[in-house]
Structure formats: C-alpha cells, structure tokens
C-alpha cells in the first residue's frame, strides 16, 4: 500500500507543483465553457428563459401595393426578426457582406398577382429571397415567417370589399369554365359578406393560422429552465480531462527518457502494479479537476445537478478513470514525448468533436449520431447532461458509467499488452 501511495503521491505532487499548469487545467475549462454557454444560451441574461437573438433581414418593396406594404409591416413587427426596408442593390450588398442573413424582394405587381393567384393557381408571382449560404437555418426561419405574413396580407386584401370587387372584375375575362366561374362568384360574394369588417367591426378579416403553438421546454421539471452552460461545461470539462490524460501519458514517456523508469523497473514491482498506480493517480487528478470545474459551474453559472447526484459523481468518476487509461494507452503506443503529444491532441480533438462536446450531436447527420455511440466522449457528455439539466434518475447514468468503465478496461488491457516494459 505504501508503494502505491508513493507513486500516486509523487504524481499528485508533480501535478500541483506547476501552479500555472494547475491554474490552466482549472481556469481554462471554466472560461471557455462559460463563453460557449453564454453563446449557445442566446443573448445576455441568466437562466434558460432568455430571448434568442433576432434575425436581421432586409425587405425590398418594389411593389408598393397595399399587400406588399402589409407584408413589410408584418415582418417589421415580428419579434423573431429585425426587418429593415432597403433598396434591392443595398440589400444584396448587405447579404454579400454578411451584415444580414436574408433579404426579401417583393417585385412590382406582386400584390395584384398574388391576390388573383389566391383563387387561381396560374400566374403565381415569385418572391426572390437573397440569402447568405452560411446561414441556411435563418433562411428557413425567414421563409416560414414570410409565408405567414404574406398569407395574412394577401387574404386580408382579398376578403376586403375592394379586393372582392377586383376579383369579380378579373373573373369576367378569366379563361375558366362557366361552372367554376359561378362557384368562385358565390365564394367571393360570401367572402364580401363575411369580410366587410373583422370581428367586432374591426379591420377586414384575413386568413390566420388555424392553431397557436404553446412551446414547453422539457427539462428536469417545469420550474427548471434549460441551461446552455450545463452542456458547455459537460463538453469542455470532457475535453480538458482528456488533455490531462494525454499529459499523463506523455509524462510517462518523459520518465522513460530521464531514467526514472529505470528506478521503477529496478524495484520489485510488476508491470500491472506500476501501470495500475499511474491509472489511479491520473484518475484522481482528473476526478478532482472535474469536481472543481463543476463547482465553478454551479457557483458562477447556475448549473444544477437536477438528476441523481450519485449518478453525476459516478459519471465523472468513470470518465476520469477512462481518461486516465487513455493516457496510459498513449504512453504504451507512443515513442517520443514530442511526436506523441501532437498525434494525441489530434485524436482527442476528434473524439471531443464526435462526442458532441463542441456542438450538440443532434446537429450531426443521423448516421453520424449512431456512429458516435462508439466514442466514449459521447457517453460522458450525454451522461453529464442527463444528470444536470435533464434531471434524470440514477438508472439513466448507469449505461454511461458502464460504457465508460468498459472503455477503461479496454484501454488498460491494450496498454498492458503493448507497453514497452523493458528499459531503453
């Protein structure tokens, strides 16, 4: 036991000796996770009820009709958008320079054509949508909102007395079958009677969405908002603990270079004991770092363990053990510290990316989401999220703990198998 403690104590001392490195291990994940949590949670403020940023759009009204003015007014009033009028060339330039994500161009004659097209499929006008291809998500949002506001403006005009009169006149010359014309006349007459005034004598009625949406964020409970910080802290702590694992592996290669390895080999110790002791010290360092980082997340950023505390600690411990064995594997496969560090950092960054530490995995293609289940970081991030903002019970942490420990056993076994036990 004293031999095991000698190895672990020395590793802990070495870790704590370099105070700048310790500070980096603890401060860097907190700062980066704080920043990412802030960005992914929306605008400034605290908690999960913050309003998201509004999408900047330009509206080019080349028509000037009542309908186009109605659409522009609807877009300008929309809480999701920051819509400003602009000339076509100015709008295009703003999109090209990335100042706005989308520009909507309402062409000349749009109002008249759109009114007619409401009842007759032929002759639909086009609305050019200029968009920044790096903001395709915003384009989809703007397209949906445009549809809503265009339908309201067009239908409001179409059901107004002047609109019905216009439609009746244009119907005379329309190339339609007599029976269809008669049906449309009846429809327009009914619309005129219905839509002369809106409910309660207000503005003319318009087509509206036949439903309203009540969105509910499903978290631990109704009182618990989603915390973007919980996700970013899960991701960043996973990333930095893996880096700590690399450092441990590289330190073993440095030990080999500076001859300390010979002291270990000269002592009556087995390979399993020496590698096991290093695993233990790496896991202790990783677990302690995780606890400190999440303590900061709780104290400063309001992250809460809404699920099982035991499950949360279990996931952190299992991940720390897994990261430590990964370091051991790196030491087993590496040759020189310098070359090993570069390759390992690349491998860890890939693991972190696939694990959803940078961006949530639901943004990945479906096949990749399935494939990332083979990456331990995915289980770590999902496990931590399950125990924090998702507020799931201990049973939900068990698969993550089991998989992480499974990876740990695999890495440890491979390290034992491949480790160059003999001194150089």
């Amino acid at each position: 036991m004293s031999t095991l403690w000698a190895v672990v104590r020395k590793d802990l001392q070495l870790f704590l000796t370099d105070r700048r490195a310790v500070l980096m291990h603890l401060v860097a994940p907190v700062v980066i996770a704080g920043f990412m949590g802030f960005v992914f949670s929306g605008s400034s403020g605290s908690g999960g009820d913050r309003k998201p940023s509004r999408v900047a759009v330009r509206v080019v009204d080349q028509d000037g009709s009542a309908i186009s003015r109605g659409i522009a007014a609807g877009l300008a009033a929309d809480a999701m958008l920051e819509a400003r009028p602009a000339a076509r060339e100015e709008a295009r330039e703003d999109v090209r320079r990335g100042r706005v994500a989308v520009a909507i161009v309402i062409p000349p004659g749009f109002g008249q054509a759109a009114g007619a097209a409401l009842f007759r499929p032929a002759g639909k006008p086009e609305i050019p949508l200029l968009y920044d291809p790096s903001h395709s998500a915003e384009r989809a949002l703007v397209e949906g909102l445009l549809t809503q506001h265009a339908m309201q403006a067009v239908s409001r005009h179409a059901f107004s007395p002047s609109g019905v009169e216009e439609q009746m006149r244009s119907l005379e010359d329309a190339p339609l079958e007599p029976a269809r014309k008669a049906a449309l006349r009846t429809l327009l007459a009914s619309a005129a009677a219905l839509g002369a005034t809106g409910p309660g004598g207000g503005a003319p009625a318009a087509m509206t969405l036949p439903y309203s949406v009540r969105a509910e964020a499903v978290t631990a409970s109704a009182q618990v908002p989603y915390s973007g910080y919980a996700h970013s802290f899960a991701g960043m702590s996973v990333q930095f603990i893996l880096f700590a694992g690399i450092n441990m592996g590289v330190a073993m290669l440095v030990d080999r270079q500076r001859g300390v390895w010979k002291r270990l080999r000269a002592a009556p110790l087995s390979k399993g004991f020496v590698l096991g002791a290093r695993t233990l010290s790496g896991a202790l360092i990783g677990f302690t770092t995780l606890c400190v980082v999440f303590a900061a997340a709780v104290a400063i950023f309001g992250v809460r363990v809404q699920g099982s505390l035991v499950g949360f600690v279990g996931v952190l411990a299992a991940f720390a053990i897994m990261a430590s064995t990964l370091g051991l594997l790196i030491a087993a496969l590496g040759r020189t510290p310098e070359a090993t560090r570069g390759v390992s950092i690349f491998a860890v960054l890939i693991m972190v990316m696939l694990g959803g530490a940078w961006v949530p995995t639901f943004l990945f293609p479906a096949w990749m989401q399935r494939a990332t289940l083979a990456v331990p970081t995915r289980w770590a991030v999902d496990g931590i999220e399950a125990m924090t903002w998702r507020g799931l019970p201990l049973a939900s942490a068990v698969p993550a703990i089991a998989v992480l420990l499974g990876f740990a056993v695999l890495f440890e076994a491979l390290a034992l198998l491949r480790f160059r036990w003999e001194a150089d």
Partner: protein
Amino acid sequence: MLEIRGLRKRFGDRLAVDGVSFELRPGEIVGVLGPNGAGKTTTVSMIAGLMRPDEGEVHIDGRPLRDDTDPAKRRIGLVPQELALYDELSARDNLRFCGGLYGLSGRALDGAIGSALGLVGLQDRAAHRVGTFSGGMKRRLNLAAGLLHGPDILLLDEPTVGVDPQSRNAVFDNLEALKRQGKALLYTTHYMEEAQRLCDRIVIIDQGRIVAHDTLRGLLRLLPAANRLHVELPATPADGAWLDDLRTLPGVSSATLAGDQLAVGTSTLGPTAARVLAFLEERGLPCQHVHSERGDLEAVFLELTGRRLRDS
C-alpha cells in the same frame, strides 16, 4: 554475493553483450571499464532486472534472480547513468518516492532519507527543489536515491558523467565509505583514472565481450613493458639496423620509431634509460628531449584491442 553467469543480449543484428561472467564480493568495488557502446549499461540493466537477458543468469547468494517482483531485487540498489530525479520536487520528496518504491514508509523512510542525505552531504538542501541543484549535487542525490532501501549490492552506471572534479571526488569518498560498510559495488566507467583509483578488480569489456578481468596490478602485468621512454631525436633517421641493435639492449622490450619520436618499452626504467641514451649518443643521434610514462589501463586496452579507450 553477486554472480553473473554468461549474460548475452542481442538487439536486432547487434550482439550487445556476449557471454559476460564475473562475480562481486562484499566490501569490494569491481569496475567495468570499456568505451562507449561496449555493453556496460546493457550488462548493468540485465543485472538490475531492467531487461531480460537472452541467455545467462544473475545469482544473488547462489540463488538466481527470477521475475520482476523477486524480493531479492531489494538487495540491489541502482544508480542509473541518467539523473533519474524530478527537478520539480524537493530532494526529500524525490527520496520519499524512491524509498516508497521499496515499501519504506513512516519513520523508517524518514530515517533512511536522513542517512542517505547525510552520506552525500545534502542534509541542508533536503527541502530545496532539485532543479536548483548543481550537476554535482544532483549526482550525489542520484546516488542517495539508490541507497535508501539499504541494498548490499550497488550498481553504479557511470555515476560521474558530466561532474566537475570536486564533486567527482565527493562521490568517490561516498563510494569508499560504502565499501567500508561492506557493500559490494559494481562501477561502470569509460574513465580509466576512475577505475584505477577506485576498483579492487577491473573487468575490461569491449564490443560486448570481456577482454580482461583482474586487479589493476594483474592487468598491468599484461603489458609487455611497465614503463615507456619517449625520446625526441634531432631529425628523422633512416630506419635501419641501429633500431634492431637497440632492441637487443638489456631491459629493452620494444622500440618503435615514428618520425623523429622514438618509443622504448622497458620494465626497469632507471638503468635502461641510461643505456638507451648512451646508445643513441654513440650512433650520432643525440637526444633533444626525453620523458617517461608508466603503463596504465589505457595501454592495457590498447594492447588488448589495438584501439585506444577514448577513440573507440
């Protein structure tokens, strides 16, 4: 106490150690002398259990050393060629780690640390970071780290590499103290002066093989001449019959001419020197300058291998 029997180790095509055998007794220092790459470190590594020999065995008190966890390894202390220390830790913490590897803890460990630091004269630097130590101090601490668990066999692999003369003497004093305590020391070096000063017996090793193994006196007896007389002549003479005549003089065992430099091997320096100088005077080759040197391990190595130790 320690017996090495037929150790052999191959790295790829290269035979690094080829059938090395010798023994080490309590209270003696055995030197393993050879040029860089001769196989000294590989031999020590196999004795210490750092690498497995392809053939041969290491015995301690007649019992072969077995696997990694053989308790007999506690009887061996290794002082590696590298400064196997953590610069970031204090001297005491480094020793605490090294002692801990052998299961020492508590008061026993504190006592061992105090004794080891006392032996190498670093008690007052116990709490200082090793990174602040001079090269000589690190070498002494490296030695202390190998002594903590009280081994009665000490393997020292070039323990004075890169050390100033003063620190080297301090290390030598430490080693002589350990020898007086009855410890058996195996000392590898490529400095013949160190082997001559310290070692009771010397194993000369070259290209993985032992080429000689004896006391210093016994090794010097291998030389055809115990002394060498160097004479500078006024000009380069024609190599002729006079050189053969010189070789027949009483006490002269060899005579070689290189340019204007004449080298004469002899076992009796005084009378032979007078005889040689008189002979040259008679032949019209007056001496311009003369000096003599004793035979040493360098000469022994040259005699045995045809190469100089430092050029190998």
